[in-house]
């Protein structure tokens, strides 16, 4: 009887936490356009399939994700950060300038710095 009450109490504690977590979950979309032959791209550490016709729309969890490419040292090099918002689409264009990949945001974050490009929806 007492253990049942404890379980009930624990459930009462856990349920609101779960509800709060599910409330924050959601997905948004990242549209990536590539101009000329772009290198292999990564969203965080997940390698993307080559984009058909140079355009791809990917479903992403809400939050900030990193668009990266293979770097010279064998590690991933950051192109830009992408802010994913619920049911919104963030557009980025990847182009090559003097053999180096560059990220152009459809819309830049007002808070971005020169070294840290951030695209928003």
């Amino acid at each position, binding site marked *: 009887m007492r253990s049942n009450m404890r379980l009930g109490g624990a459930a009462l504690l856990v349920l609101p936490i779960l509800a709060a977590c599910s409330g924050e979950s959601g997905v*948004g979309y990242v549209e990536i356009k590539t101009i000329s032959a772009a290198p292999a791209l990564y969203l965080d550490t997940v390698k993307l*399939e080559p984009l058909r016709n140079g355009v*791809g*729309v*990917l*479903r992403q969890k809400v939050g900030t994700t990193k668009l990266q490419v293979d770097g010279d040292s064998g590690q991933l090099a950051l192109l830009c950060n992408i802010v994913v918002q619920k*049911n*919104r*689409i963030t*557009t980025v264009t990847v182009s090559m300038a003097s053999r180096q990949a560059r990220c152009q945001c459809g819309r830049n974050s007002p808070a971005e710095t020169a070294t840290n490009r951030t695209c928003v929806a």
Partner: protein
Amino acid sequence: MRSILIPRAFSGKVATGFPQKMRPLKIFAAMLLLSASVVAGPSAPVLAQAESAATPDSRIADDEFSKQLSELRKTFGDLSKKIEDSAQTIGRLDNAEAARKEIEELRSYVGALLDAVADNGTVWNLGVKALKRAEDKLKMLERETRYKPEDRQYLIDRWRELRAATEAAIGELEAARKDFAGLLRTLQTNEDFIDELLQVREHAKALEVIHKLTDGIRDASDKLKKLLTTLKTPGV
């Protein structure tokens, strides 16, 4: 996005190890066989087994693609109705805040459409798998020597038809993705503008933008209806 597939023959068995009752001699024999196959590389029967084991999975992917496309048409039909209703509501509203809420809801419908056709979505992945299967089948049949030439040609023709139908379905999904992405962009840009107008208390201007937006939404609804009539499921 590619997922790592573990062959069915191995899944769930690697971690469990040998059954406890297996005698040491049997374990030794099994280890000998295993090491021999590793040293010698995969033999023809092993390859054949791997191929036949992969076939049902591919068939499941084909069937699943057709099934998912049928379900998608139903979902698109329902959402098309909701989008149309939303456009009518937005057109009638004379309260900018309420209209902005409606646009926000509309974004969730369009998001659901985009979700279904995204590059890392289930339907898209199944379509790509089904197309790869048709291409692999065609390559295999072109090398096939067991069948009479007319029988082989019959199979090749059928697989070419299937490949064409799958390509057409993928093309439709690609076009739909472009339209939905465009609509979502339009909605969010207008919503942001309306937000800005409301911040400076320009309600009349906000309502004007909202009413103009309904044309764009209706246009998307028409495109969705057209997609529903053209999107065909490739039967396997």
